[in-house]
């Protein structure tokens, strides 16, 4: 799990004029998502999923806006964001390639897949290429052990990977 270490007292968060949560989104959350939970904080994870999906990360300004919407402390939002691996505070690449490294994939050859990606993309796991196109992740079990080795590419799972099938897959991704 991630622990964020930062000089809180001196940090200024980057801000922009246009809010991350539009009025339309807020209306949707107030009408559809927040009433699902006995306390508004329950709606935090669904909202964070939306922001992460739309922006490729969760900006600090968005955390403050979400806190205001749910009437909780921004620190509570950061607490949740920092805990879950799917939420990032830095932008991820356009395509997130997550290679499973858990036991079934390891004994079925995940290392070949991961090493090939490191060479091909010229990055190490948990880094993003300079052009912002790919982020490489080494993930824990994806729940597809019958298709080991497997990987997630932006949420789509691909099973029984070989170097050839992986190359074909990545080369076919639109720009």
């Amino acid at each position, binding site marked *: *799990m991630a*622990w964020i270490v930062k000089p809180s007292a001196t940090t200024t968060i980057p801000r922009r004029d246009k809010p991350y949560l539009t009025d339309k989104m807020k209306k949707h959350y107030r009408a559809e998502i927040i009433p*699902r*939970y*006995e*306390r508004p*904080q*329950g*709606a*935090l*994870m*669904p909202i*964070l*999923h939306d922001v992460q999906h739309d922006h490729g990360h969760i900006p600090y300004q968005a955390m403050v806006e979400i806190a205001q919407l*749910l009437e909780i402390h921004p620190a*509570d939002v950061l*607490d*949740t964001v*920092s*805990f*879950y*691996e*799917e*939420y990032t505070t830095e932008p991820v690449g356009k395509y997130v390639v*997550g290679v499973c*490294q*858990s*036991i*079934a994939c*390891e*004994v*079925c050859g995940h290392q070949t897949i991961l090493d090939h990606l490191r060479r091909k993309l010229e990055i190490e796991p948990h880094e993003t290429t300079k052009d912002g196109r790919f982020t490489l992740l080494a*993930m*824990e*079990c*994806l*729940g*597809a*052990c*019958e*298709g*080991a080795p497997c990987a*997630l590419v932006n*949420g*789509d*799972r691909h099973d029984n990977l070989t170097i050839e099938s992986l190359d074909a897959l990545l080369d076919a991704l639109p720009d």
Partner: protein
Amino acid sequence: MPVTEPVLCHRIPTPPWGDPADRHLVTYDEYVKSGGYQALKMALDMKPAEIVDAVKESQLRGRGGAGFPCGLKWTFLPEPDGGRRYLAVNCDEAEPGTFKDRLLCDFDPHLVLEGIAITCHACRLDTAYFFIRGEYHHQAETVQRAIDEAYEAGIFGNKKGILGKGDLSIECYLHRGAGAYICGEETGLLEAVEGKRGWPRVKPPFPAVSGLFGRPTIVNNVETLAAVTPIVLNGAEWFTKMGCDSSIGGPPSYGPKLMGVSGHVNKPGVYEVDLGIPLRKLVDDFAGGMRGGKAYKGAIAGGVSMGILGPDQFDAEMDFDIGRKYDVMGLGTACPTIFDEDTDMVAVARNIARFFKNESCGQCTPCREGAQWIYKLLCRIESGEATSKDLDLLLEIAGSMGIMPGTTICGLADGNNWAVRTIVNKYRSEFESRVKPYFVPVTMGAG
């Protein structure tokens, strides 16, 4: 009587009854046409207590890992007091080697939803949260679509009662996780639904008394709920004819079970079998035998936290007695990962230790720190830099973390503990051949 026809895989073609290539998502219409939601209609004509009794009689044990009797868990609920009562559906399934719940979400989500509706009726629960792990993107979509269909059909969100019957209106919401193994722990899951970090809670109070938002909550695994549907339909006695009795005088292991076989086998996949099937039979008759005709070396019993079945335990029966008979923690999710003779068990141990190091939530010190130490020690052993003293240190650290030694809140560290200890104990020579001897300096007394 063994499982003669598919129960949970009734609509999912699974060998030996069907070809996995024919699998497709069963929509609401197709589900109803093939006899779906009949059990729910029967349940609505029964008194809630009758359903709870039927599930108790069936001796259905939780399919999520702990094997806790499902009916007994339901009886822990207090009497309704007019406030909200919750069902949390555990579809976190992040245990390495486990992929059985995914099959149900992928192809037959209505079987689970029917179980949810029956459980809500039986336990008087008004809101269900279907917690699905973040990595299951596609499955979240199929389940959400099924939930929408069930809303349209008047099963959920019906002010006139479930399917227009009774006085209970239930809501069912999908709640997606975001990549944390610990949310599969029941109280960690509750924290995640509340929008907090998934730190397990101190128990007691147990969720049945004080769970989500401090209200009574039942947490059940997807497969457990799916099994409730056929129990209501066919009766408890029918269910107890499948599976096996305990051979050591413990509680029985009745019913069919989804077992996902992975690793070095020819046909990895999920199979529906009787509880109590010997591992060898599961591998040879269902999973197509060992890959490349190689010899069996070991197997993860059912998810890495359960520990490992050694080279002489290929005939282990896959039932809830497995823990007491074969020196593993338990049956877990009953999804074995098989290793052939070429597997480096030190690397297996290192891989599992890395998983627990990454997934420790950081709440309890013995787990957070211990998991790091165990991983570092195993890396050192793998690289050949360690001494025999490190092997003893490894076992000492592993043995000191978890609920059983009494040093942590949840069982994640027990998983780490059992996995590492069973691998080292059952493959001791392999570890010893990788470490350098440790010489104790002895000085002669000068007299």
